[in-house]
C-alpha cells in the first residue's frame, strides 16, 4: 500500500513539474559575438529587460563567423541555439526566405528609426528582424596627449595625412605610424572601406555593394593604387596585429594612430584622451547597425519578439549610455550619450552614412575581401592581383 502511495505521489510530482511555468522558468537566450568589455557594456540592456518584464535572459557568445556555420545545420534540424540572435543582415535576409526567421512586422514602427535602418532585414512588406544601436567607423583615433607631446595636429589634406604619418614614424619608440588591427580580417576591411568612401565616394560604395561597378574599375583601383598602396609601401601601416592587442600597443605608445569603430570609446582607460579624425576629403562614413532576429524554432516566440522589440527601442537608450554606440532609434535623447560619443556623432554631419560594405555583401565574398586585404597589407605590390580576385569573387 505504502509503495502504491509513493508511486502515485511520484507520478503527481512529475505531472505537476511538466505543467508550463512550473517545469522550468521561462528563460530567453540572447546570442551575439560581444565579449569582454563589449559584453560588459551590453549586459545592462538585458538587465533592464529583465527588470521591466520579469523574464529571465541568458547571454551566450558566438562569433558571427561561427554562427554562419552553426545556424544552417540547426535550422535544417528545426532548432536554434538562442531566442534572439545577433547576426549579419544578409544572413537574416537569406534565411528569412527559407522560413527560418519569425516575422517581426507590427512589433516595430519603422518611423521611429533612422531612415533605411530596418531595410536590410525587410523583405517586401515583411520585417524579419530588429535593429540595435550602430557603430560609426569614423576614422583614425589618436591620443590627444600623444599629439600634444609631439606637436602633431589633425591633417586637412591627404598630403598632410602622409606628412603626419611620416612625422609619427620618426618618433623614437614608434613601431609604425598606424596600428593595423586584425581579427578574422574585418579591421582591415574597415580601413579599405573608409578609403573608398573618402576618395571614390559614397556612390561608388553603393555601386560596389550592388555589384554595379567592378573592383578593377579605374575609380576603385585608383583608391587602392594612389592612396592606400603608397601608405603601405612607406611602411606607415603596421603588419596586421590581433586588434585588441593592437589597441593596447597603440594606447601604450607603440603606434600613433589606430583605425577602429566608435566602440573604442568604451574600451579605453581614459576616453577623454581620445581624438579622432576622418580622412581628409571624406565624403561618407560607415554607420553599421547591429541586427538581430528571432529564429522560427524558439520555444517562446512572443517573449522573444518582445525582447527583440525592447532591444530595438528602449534597450538602445540603455546601451548608448555605456559609450561607443550610436542609436538607430530616434527617440533616444542626446543627453543619454557620453560626451565623447557626441563628438563622434558630430563627424557624421555633412557626410553620407554608409552601410558596412563587407557585412552587406556577405557570403563567400566577405572572407575573400578580408583575406585579400591581409595580402595587400604585406605585399602592396600585388594590388592588381588583389583587385582581380575581389572582382572574380564578386561575380
Amino acid at each position: 500500500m505504502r509503495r502504491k502511495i509513493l508511486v502515485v505521489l511520484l507520478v503527481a510530482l512529475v505531472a505537476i513539474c511538466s505543467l508550463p511555468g512550473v517545469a522550468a522558468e521561462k528563460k530567453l537566450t540572447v546570442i551575439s559575438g560581444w565579449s569582454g568589455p563589449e559584453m560588459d557594456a551590453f549586459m545592462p540592456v538585458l538587465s533592464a529587460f529583465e527588470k521591466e518584464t520579469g523574464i529571465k535572459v541568458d547571454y551566450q557568445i558566438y562569433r558571427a563567423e561561427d554562427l554562419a556555420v552553426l545556424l544552417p545545420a540547426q535550422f535544417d534540424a528545426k532548432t536554434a541555439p538562442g531566442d534572439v540572435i545577433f547576426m549579419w543582415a544578409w544572413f537574416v535576409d537569406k534565411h528569412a526566405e527559407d522560413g527560418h526567421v519569425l516575422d517581426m512586422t507590427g512589433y516595430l514602427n519603422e518611423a521611429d528609426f533612422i531612415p533605411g535602418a530596418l531595410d536590410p532585414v525587410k523583405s517586401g512588406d515583411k520585417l524579419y528582424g530588429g535593429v540595435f544601436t550602430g557603430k560609426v567607423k569614423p576614422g583614425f583615433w589618436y591620443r590627444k596627449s600623444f599629439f600634444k607631446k609631439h606637436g602633431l595636429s589633425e591633417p586637412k589634406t591627404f598630403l598632410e595625412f602622409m606628412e603626419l604619418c611620416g612625422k609619427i614614424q620618426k618618433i623614437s619608440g614608434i613601431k609604425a605610424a598606424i596600428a593595423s588591427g586584425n581579427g578574422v580580417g574585418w579591421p582591415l576591411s574597415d580601413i579599405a572601406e573608409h578609403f573608398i568612401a573618402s576618395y571614390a565616394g559614397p556612390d561608388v560604395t553603393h555601386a560596389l555593394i550592388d555589384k554595379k561597378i567592378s573592383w578593377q574599375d579605374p575609380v576603385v583601383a585608383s583608391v587602392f593604387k594612389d592612396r592606400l598602396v603608397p601608405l603601405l609601401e612607406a611602411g606607415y601601416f603596421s603588419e596586421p596585429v590581433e586588434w585588441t592587442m593592437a589597441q593596447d600597443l597603440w594606447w601604450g605608445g607603440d603606434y600613433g594612430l589606430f583605425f577602429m569603430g566608435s566602440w573604442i570609446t568604451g574600451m579605453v582607460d581614459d576616453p577623454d584622451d581620445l581624438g579622432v579624425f576622418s580622412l581628409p576629403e571624406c565624403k561618407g562614413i560607415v554607420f553599421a547597425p547591429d541586427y538581430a532576429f528571432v529564429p522560427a524554432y524558439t520555444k517562446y516566440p512572443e517573449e522573444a519578439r518582445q525582447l527583440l522589440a525592447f532591444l530595438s527601442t528602449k534597450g538602445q537608450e540603455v546601451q548608448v549610455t555605456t559609450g561607443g554606440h550610436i542609436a538607430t532609434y530616434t527617440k533616444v535623447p542626446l543627453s543619454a550619450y557620453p560626451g565623447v560619443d557626441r563628438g563622434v556623432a558630430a563627424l557624421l554631419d555633412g557626410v553620407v552614412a554608409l552601410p558596412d560594405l563587407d557585412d552587406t555583401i556577405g557570403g563567400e565574398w566577405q572572407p575573400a575581401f578580408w583575406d585579400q586585404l591581409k595580402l595587400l597589407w604585406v605585399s602592396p605590390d600585388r594590388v592588381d592581383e588583389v583587385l582581380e580576385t575581389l572582382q572574380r569573387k564578386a561575380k
Partner: protein
Amino acid sequence: MGQTRGRIFFFLPALVLLAVFVVYPVANTVWLSFQTPDGEFAFFRNYADVLSEPEIVDLRGFKRGFPYGALIHNIIWIVIHLPLTVMLGLILAVILRDVKGGVLIKSIVFLGMVTPMVVGGIILRFLFDGSVGILPSFLALFGVKQRTLTAHPDTALFALIAGSLWLWTPFSMVLYSAGLETIPDYVYEAAVIDGASPLRIFFLITVPLLRPVTGVVVTMTFLWVLKIFDIVFVATMGGPGGASNVLALQMYMYAFREFNPNAAAVVATFLMIVALVVSIPTFRALRGDN
C-alpha cells in the same frame, strides 16, 4: 549454425551503426558531388569546375610565389611534414629510450599531442607574431627582420607546417617508443658481440624491425595532413590571400560560406579517394609483413 547466429547477433548492431553513420553519409556525399544545386545529374562537371578554380590549383603561383592553391599546399605540407615527423619521432624515441629522465622529457614532448588543435592554432598565431612571438624574436637575434611569419604569403604555410610538426611529432614518437619495446634485447646484444657500431645497429636492426610501426606512422600522418583544418582555420584562415589555404578549409568555405554543398562534396570525395588510395596498399603491405 548457432555460433553463426550468435556472431550475426553481435555483429548486427555495429553494422547498422556503420551503415547509418558512415556508409550512408559517404554514399550521399559522393552522390551529391555529381549533382547540380538543383539536383540534376552533372556527371564530372562539378569536378572540372572545382579542380580548375585557382583556390584549388593556381599555376600562376609558380611564377609569382604563394598561393599555389589548396591542393598544391596540401602536397607541400605532406612532402615536408611526413618525412620530418617520421625522422624526428624515431630519433626522439631512440634517444630518449635509455636516457635518464627520458620518460619526463617524452611527457613534455607529448604535451603537443594532447593540446587541442584549435588551441594549438591559437598558440601558433602568437608564437609566430612579430611583436610578441618567441620565434621571430629568436630569429631577430641572428639579424633576421622581426615580422609575423603567419602574415606573409611566403612564410605563412611553412610556419603552419613547423607548428604542425610540434603538434604531431609526439604521435610518431609514442608509436616508435612502443615499437622499440617490442624488439628483444638479445638482438641488440648479438649485434654488439658481433662488433656492430651504434649507427649500424640503428640502420640494420632498429629501422627494419620498426617497419610495421613506420607504416602506421606514415599512413596516419598522411591522413592527418590530408584533412588538416583546425590549426589553419584558427591561425591564418588560409591567408594571407589564400597562401596557406588547404583542401579541408576550402571544403568548409564551399559548404558554409558559399552554401554550395555540391562543390564541398567534390572536395570531400576527392580527399576520400586519395586517403583510400594511400591507406589501403599501406595496410595490405603491413599485413604481408606480419
